[in-house]
């Protein structure tokens, strides 16, 4: 349906090719979250892998920082329509977490769980093979609490609501179990290139 008089602002081709459908480029780093930043104290911070209720392995901040490090550089896409190019993150890859826990993924799905009780679901296949990490640095610095520090999930090939802030653990689930936004009409998978913003997209 054409909107009378709307022309729009076209991106240069090199930018347009990097923007998923319906997205626009921003130089800012917008902040979106459901409530206030939780208070997360590094001296009591723990990160826990669980299968259902059963803990598989848990790390203190010191132990976590001693794990092998991974860097990732690239573009991120938020379901609220902004994209940000050339972001740089560092942290511990999901593969390295599993290796340190001396386990294979016990199920095909998990829920990322945050200190503010936020949750989001991601298939394990989207985390392995270097596709995701628990990030503790952004642009070479510790991640600011506004952006999910001390540690957040980073799954850059999915809409950024999947990259849960203030991460406290990953819980393997038997089935693909909807998280906070997925229960409220957001897409279960969230691929920006297929514009999977909401259920039914």
């Amino acid at each position, binding site marked *: *349906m*054409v*909107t*009378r*008089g*709307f*022309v*729009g*602002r*076209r991106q240069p081709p090199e930018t347009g090719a990097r923007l998923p459908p*319906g997205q*626009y480029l*921003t*130089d*800012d*780093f*917008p*902040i*979106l*979250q*459901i*409530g*206030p*930043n*939780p208070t997360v104290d590094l001296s009591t911070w723990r990160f826990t892998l669980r299968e259902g209720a059963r803990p598989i392995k848990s790390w203190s901040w010191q132990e976590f920082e001693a794990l092998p490090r991974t860097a990732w550089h690239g573009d991120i896409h938020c379901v*609220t*329509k902004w994209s940000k190019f050339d972001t740089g993150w560092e942290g511990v890859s999901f593969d390295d977490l599993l290796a340190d826990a001396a386990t294979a993924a016990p199920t095909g799905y998990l829920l990322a769980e945050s200190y*503010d*009780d936020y949750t989001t679901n991601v298939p394990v296949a989207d985390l392995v093979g270097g596709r995701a990490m628990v990030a503790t640095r952004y642009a070479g610095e510790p991640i600011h609490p*506004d952006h999910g520090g001390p540690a957040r999930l980073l799954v850059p090939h999915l809409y950024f609501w999947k990259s849960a802030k203030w991460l406290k653990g990953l819980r393997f689930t038997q089935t693909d179990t909807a998280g*906070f936004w997925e229960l*409220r*009409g957001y897409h279960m998978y969230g691929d920006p290139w297929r514009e999977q*913003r*909401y*259920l*039914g997209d």
Partner: protein
Amino acid sequence: MSSAISVTEPIVFRWQPAEIIAIAPVTPWVKSFRLRCDLAHNYRAGQHVDVRLTAEDGYQAQRSYSIASVQDGSGTLELMVEALPDGEVSGWFSLCAEVGDRVELRGPIGGSFSWDGSDGGPLLLAAGGSGVVPLLAMLRRRVQAWPEIPAALIYSVRTRQEAIALPELERLDREGAGFDLHLATTRETGGRRIDAALVAGALLRLGRPEKVFICGSNRFVGAASDLIVAAGIAPGVIRTERFGG
């Protein structure tokens, strides 16, 4: 008599046509648009919609806008759009849109940032600039159906001239029916920013809020959340929504 059965239907947001049926200036930078559309029959105060515009060659742009109105059976809803510098979609709304124009909408989106009287109160709202729009919808819902629930709005804005719906808010405040407006103008003589004293004053009159909604720029929402948490309000009752970078 029907028994109470909880039915969870999957929420599916589909694009639907919407026609602009009225346009009115609100402030020098904000206009109100009343649109006729199907989703106007089912939304909660505080929710937003996605708006999509399509150019002749098929190019599309989408943005999210909060709903300012409450359901009133008219089959229409009100959006308020602030003209942003170089705004691709807001620019069309502020400079080009006319009554009779058609756009596409989908939603309502954002169930966690929404309120109805059955969610409880007292209700503490804090807004910066155009962040007041979804909170205005909550206050309108309160007037419409839940006037007994105490409410307060802390509204930070640069100047009175830029305050959205100020006559309506001041009238509600004057009528004294359980609502207080705490206006903080940041760029006027004798103005102030939101601070601990302002929050304490609002809480003193309101009592302990069961629901808190904060909306505005990053900086405003960060500052207001910190102040409200520092005043002893449980983070779990606070919901936030932020605009832009």
